[in-house]
């Protein structure tokens, strides 16, 4: 989605700070995750993402069953069992996810997808699977036109907290800036792509495991939404 050489200029500082705070996952309510490193079933290290390293060495005879049982036992949102040697064996694949002109969000996504599909990883619940929805989103953005603008705006009550005006060329963002001197509610209705919503709605989208799916589903809560994928 991000074009090589993208220009990000003249972003209004207070508003962009609000956008950054929305994008941060640190505030997202969570029960934490349990990450377990093992060597063919022999546990080497257990880390609770909220509580830190734990001095426990659970038995991992059956990895899938162990993941389910550990999740229940520790009340966490997810358990991830990682076989050390199998993961290390994929180091060349991880190094190849994003050189060249692959944009950074895509590379981050590919790296995560590679991880979740790795034979080194057993997890409960099932891995997040956003790949297909991202492809649909990218296809949708290309379908809206060769060269167009889109607007994202967040409202804190009646006050516009931030705006971000993006220019898309061939489905990729080539320019980002803040909207200057115009009412975002007016501009949003003129553009082929726009989402104007409360900060609460946007925070839920930004921290969703499957962002494209969350975008698709947000229309009923948005003040204005145009051109979002259905």
């Amino acid at each position, binding site marked *: 989605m991000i074009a090589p050489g993208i220009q990000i*200029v003249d972003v209004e500082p207070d508003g962009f700070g609000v956008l*950054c705070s929305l*994008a941060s996952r640190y505030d997202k309510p969570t029960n934490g995750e349990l990450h377990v490193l093992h060597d063919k079933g022999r546990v080497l290290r257990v*880390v609770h993402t909220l509580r830190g390293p734990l001095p426990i060495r659970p038995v991992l005879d059956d990895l899938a069953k162990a993941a389910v049982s550990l999740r229940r036992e520790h009340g966490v949102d997810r358990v991830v069992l990682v076989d050390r040697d199998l*993961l290390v064996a994929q180091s060349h694949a991880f*190094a190849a996810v*994003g050189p060249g002109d692959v944009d950074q969000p895509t590379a981050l996504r590919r790296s995560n997808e590679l991880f979740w599909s790795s034979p080194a990883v057993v997890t409960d619940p099932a891995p997040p699977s956003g790949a297909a929805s991202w492809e649909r989103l990218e296809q949708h953005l290309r379908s809206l036109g060769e060269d167009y603008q889109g607007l994202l705006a967040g409202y804190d009550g009646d006050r516009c907290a931030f705006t971000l005006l993006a220019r898309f060329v061939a489905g990729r963002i080539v320019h980002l800036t803040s909207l200057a001197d115009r009412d975002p509610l007016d501009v949003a209705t003129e553009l082929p792509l726009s989402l104007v919503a409360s900060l609460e709605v946007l925070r839920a989208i930004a921290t969703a495991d499957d962002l494209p799916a969350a975008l698709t589903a947000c229309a009923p809560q948005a003040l204005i939404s145009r051109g979002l994928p259905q």
Partner: protein
Amino acid sequence: MVTVSPEGLRLGDRVLRLLSGEVHPWRLDPADWDRVLDSVQELGFETVSCYVSWARHEVSPGAFDFSGSRDIEAFFTKVHARGMFAVVRVGPNTAAEQEDSGWPRRVLDDPACQARRPGGAPYLLATSTHQSWMPSYASKTTLAEIARWYDEVCARLSPLQWPAGPIVACQVDNEIGFHFQSHAFALDYHPDAVVQYQQFLSDLYDRDGLNAAYGSSYGAFDQVQPPTDGTCEPEQWRVDWVRFREHHLRSTLALLSSMLRDRGMDRVPLVHNDYPRTTTPMDLGSLESSGAVDIAGADIYTTKEGGRFVRELARHLAGSSVLPYMAELGTGWLTLPWLLPMQTTPLDEEHAALRAWIHGVRAANVYMLVERDRWYGSPISARGEIREPQGSFYRRLQAMLDDLDWTSLRRDAPVLIVENRDVSRRVAARAVMGDVVPCFSQLLPLDVRLFEQDDDEADAALAWDKAMVAELDRLGIEADRAASTSLPDLSRYQAVAAFGGLPCANVTEPTQLAALLDPPAFRSSSTELDLVRLTGGGREVLAVANNSGAQVDTELICDGSVSLRGCWQPEQLKGDGAISVSLGPWAVQVWEVTR
């Protein structure tokens, strides 16, 4: 010839306070350069700092363009004509949210240049809007490429050194420390790095000594391969690798420095900056004491909640450097929220910047003073408009530093906290899975602590440090920090504290501190207030930072009758034995004291 002094840069008879603002003229319209420089001066800055980006100038392999917005000579000529000064940052790495961190893509795509993981995979770094394979500084191919870049850039910049031109310092590379990778077994396993490692061992040991230390039977040093994981035995093998990584950074910077000096950049101090990391593989004090660079600084970007982190970093610089230098003191932040989202406000920046100054920093580069592509929240826009309240903050800061002749002041810091580098190296040598540890956590949905082993020694060292800092806070005592490998003059401290019992230390437990120290001149019962007393030039100054988001109303206890003149926030206070003070949330205040 420009030299370094504890107060700043010495230019003949004048000492220049090194407080610069970062400007990237190559990202601005040259038609705006004068307006931008007008605003820089209006905010009180005499010095600009500028990256000179290799990738921007090498427009095709071996072909360089120094025209238009890339015309650095024209820009620095304008700077000089205004009586201003410049710090140039010539790379090779010039980061700054550029694709490929300012390296030409052809260099990074050359397998002979690429830094390697233990299993031979190249190292992928998320750089700005995409990602790149990062280079090995041991690679002879990389170094030959750097030499060609230095040929080009130094030919243009060396004539512009002071006094003929505005350049008063030159930065060697940027945040060289293994491309944001502190993990001891992540990098660098390039074949040329392995040769350097073997040479390093042969300087440490003779063959029999090595075999005795490792329980091995090597016939020659070129048979010794680096350890690849924290589970490799014996421990000494791993610790020597960790030591090699420190040596590699030091020797690489020394080499790059000599390359610059050989090309004429020999009339100004050479500086380096690391991201805020003070332990292995970085050793800021040794970078200076070895002569690798003249000033080893650090970069900091944080919110107000990170104020005490800034404090500890500033304390480290104060204990390690002749001129404690925040080489990047953040104002605004990068516009890559999918990678590093941070909401920064004027209050965040005021708290962090004042923290740096009151806890020992005496030189800084405000980054980015002038906004550009992929950055937000700077005090000056890309077209030269001053943004408030950030602009006013820097006017006031400059005025206060002038008013109090700040660089002549010295903190009361009677304690030195020593990082036991032997312990740090052992801890670092226990890291695991360097083949896949990511440069940024977003690349793998795994808690980064999974790349460590359970480590009682690391836990004990961390707990010791926390307890020592808590005791200093309780006593109201300021401290410096340094690594055991690069100690400052110990005679200036009443107490030297180290974990694990080092010969330099007279304190091993926090409870020993109180008996060794004179009581501070000012005390507060609030644990949220950090008090620092500074003296010099016949002045006494008291600085205080509120480390909380709540108003603090308290009394400062002192001996006798004193008056306090507010130098940051205007106010006049008086008291005899005690003075009532009020500090707003996260507020910092500086008073001149009259007794």
